[in-house]
């Protein structure tokens, strides 16, 4: 879709640059937010195409379309593209667009750094995706980059490592900008406990990013020096240990899970009160629960590696710590349900997607608790059960949250209402197909089908075919989203400033679309105009 058309009906008094320079040198949080979102959408389709290669190959046992090496590249790069290219940039894009207008700030605190953190992304993904044309192929050792396997990669290894470095730098700068903005640029009266929950979840996400991304950067730097500079961090011959990599990686990896999910939690915490026409139930407990989840996420990493041969006490510690995260998560789920309780609910597309998150994230949450039980994990480890688990969390959990946010704020961004019928069609086709796609994977995993394998035993054929049909249906359903967005950008029924009858907060006091520069004089915030 075209970026330029999104803002073509701006108010005349708005001073804004024109042409390609507007985007290349942009320091405007709305433009940068838009670029992040468009980039995420493109990556979503690139990563999705890779997933469809996987599902096509797995439609039948035996090798059909691709060779095993390429299949492994597909699983590896699909994950990297979706995590670092689609979900994280979408979250940062929403933060860029919404946080300044939610807290009454004129822009982000460091607009130039904001520009830089966005433009690093296309650069990093060019590095990563160019590896498909290299000797030895694209990364194929899994997105977790475990040595010694990853060190056997051909010319792609340094490209993979530098891409991860750049992605880390980009997200750390984005996170610093968000915290600096919220801490210093709130409008008078916008106290911390009046912040919309989306802003709160992003503050906490940003802290998680700053604390965990540098650790990942360190881990891949060690890989780089092991491969090219003779160090032996993970090389047993030199006195190192490959298991050490897994510890460092997952010290980043588990908080990363919450980096992905917390913004979506924030989004649905805005949407559910709006369409229930009630304030959010338990605002303060939501804030504390989010902080508790983030804090606990640093003490559970080894649940990804129960099978490496840990001492029993270690396994027990990580098992109990993991399960304890279910408590604050449960607080959030019950708060959302209590918000809907006896509310005057309506079911517009954003609300449908939010309720979808509630139901299907919970499915992923429960299988997560199952995997957290050490003896059970020994059976499920590296099977399709874990694939089912994290895809339930990531797709109808996190990505649905992003969809919900896009539908919720699209009229605010464009000034036009989107096509509600198409939105609902997108929701229902996605929801049916996503369950057809991922639910059978639970059965496959329980029956013992290993993940990351291009071929399988014939007994797994039926459920794989069901999953593949669901996969293609889900992929096609996403074209509806593109259609809705393009249609909405081009025109439609004019949106009011408030857009939704039950919407409260500063962003709804601005015109739809908001002026290029908003809140140049900060608004005064009171309990009545704040969220919560």
């Amino acid at each position, binding site marked *: 879709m075209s970026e330029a058309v999104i803002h073509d009906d701006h108010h005349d008094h708005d001073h804004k640059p024109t042409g390609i320079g507007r985007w290349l040198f942009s320091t405007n949080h709305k433009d940068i937010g838009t670029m992040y979102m468009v980039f995420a959408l493109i990556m979503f389709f690139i990563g999705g195409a890779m997933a469809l290669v996987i599902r096509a190959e797995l439609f039948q046992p035996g090798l059909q379309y691709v060779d095993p090496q390429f299949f492994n590249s597909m699983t590896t790069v699909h994950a990297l593209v979706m995590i670092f290219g689609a979900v994280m940039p979408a979250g940062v894009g929403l933060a860029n667009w919404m946080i300044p207008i939610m807290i009454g700030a004129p822009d982000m*605190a*460091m607009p130039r*750094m904001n520009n830089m953190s966005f433009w690093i992304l296309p650069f990093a993904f060019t590095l990563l995706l160019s590896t498909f044309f290299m000797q030895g192929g694209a990364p194929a050792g899994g997105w977790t980059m475990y040595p010694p396997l990853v060190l056997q990669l051909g010319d792609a290894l340094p490209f993979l490592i530098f891409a991860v470095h750049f992605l880390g730098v980009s997200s*750390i700068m984005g*996170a*610093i*900008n968000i*915290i*600096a*903005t919220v*801490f*210093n*640029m709130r409008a008078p009266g916008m106290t911390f406990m009046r912040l919309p929950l989306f802003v709160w979840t992003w503050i906490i996400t940003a802290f998680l990013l*700053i*604390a*965990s*991304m*540098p*650790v*990942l*950067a*360190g*881990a891949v730097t*060690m890989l780089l020096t092991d491969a090219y500079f*003779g160090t*032996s*961090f993970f090389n*047993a*011959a*030199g*006195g*190192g*240990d490959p*298991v*050490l990599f897994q*510890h*460092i990686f997952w*010290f980043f990896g588990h908080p990363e899970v919450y980096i992905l999910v917390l913004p979506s939690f924030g989004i649905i915490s805005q949407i559910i009160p709006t369409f229930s026409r009630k304030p959010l139930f338990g605002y303060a407990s939501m804030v504390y629960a989010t902080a508790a989840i983030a804090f606990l996420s640093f003490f559970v990493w080894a649940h990804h590696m129960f099978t490496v*041969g*840990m*001492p*029993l*006490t*270690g396994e027990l510690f990580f098992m109990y710590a993991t399960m304890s995260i279910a408590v604050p998560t449960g607080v959030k789920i019950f708060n959302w349900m209590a918000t809907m309780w006896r509310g005057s609910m309506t079911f517009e597309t954003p609300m449908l997607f939010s309720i979808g998150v509630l139901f299907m994230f919970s499915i992923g949450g429960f299988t997560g608790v199952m995997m957290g039980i050490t003896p059970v994990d020994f059976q499920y480890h590296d099977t399709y059960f874990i694939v089912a688990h994290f895809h339930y969390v990531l797709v109808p959990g996190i990505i649905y949250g992003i969809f919900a946010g896009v539908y919720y704020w699209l009229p605010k961004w464009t000034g036009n209402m989107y096509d509600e019928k198409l939105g609902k069609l997108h929701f229902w086709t996605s929801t049916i197909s996503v369950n057809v796609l991922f639910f059978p994977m639970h059965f496959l995993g329980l029956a013992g089908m290993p993940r990351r394998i291009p071929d399988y035993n014939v007994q797994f054929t039926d459920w794989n075919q069901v999953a593949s049909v669901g996969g293609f249906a889900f992929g096609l359903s996403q074209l509806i989203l593109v259609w809705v967005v393009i249609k909405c950008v081009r025109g439609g029924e004019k949106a009011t400033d408030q857009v939704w009858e039950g919407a409260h907060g500063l962003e709804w006091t601005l015109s739809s679309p908001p002026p290029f520069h908003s809140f140049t004089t900060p608004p005064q915030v009171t309990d009545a105009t704040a969220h919560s």
Partner: protein
Amino acid sequence: MVKDAVNTAKLLFVFAIAMFGFGYALVPLYDVFCEVVGINGKTGQISESTAIAGEIDTNRLVTVEFDTNVNTALPWSFKAEQYKKQVHPGEIAEMMFVAHNTSDRAIVGRAVPSVAPAQASLFFNKTECFCFTEQVLEPGERKEMPVKFVVDAELPDKITMMTLSYTFFEVPEAERVETASKNRIIDNNKS
């Protein structure tokens, strides 16, 4: 407002850099942790005099198995003289290992030890081991290397068997010079 924001950002940058350092700090922390809980082959080393002073539990026998491996890149053969040995907890036992350089160049090798089950490794102490240092074998040289060890008398009764495993690796050229400072396993076993 903007000045405050810049200060916040500076603080956060320092925090990010500190976390990068923390990633590296996990490397020595990991070794210390493994040694404390006795996993990952980080078995204890004690001096011969402390080993002799310890009590010997003659009421029971523990079987110690010996497992030897050579990394595929290393042209050596490496065997223990026997596959297993029965010892009384507390008694000093010895096992001879033989390495043979089958190539026509001198090679520096390093053995990485490991003890299974992990619960047993806390009670397995060596007083002498070829794994404490690097081993140089001239072309065709055959070398006998003794290991002296003591199974602690405190070993829980339920453990009746344990395995001592070694894997020999070639030490990369770049690392040979300052062995003592670079070889983390050796450092840990000495402390």
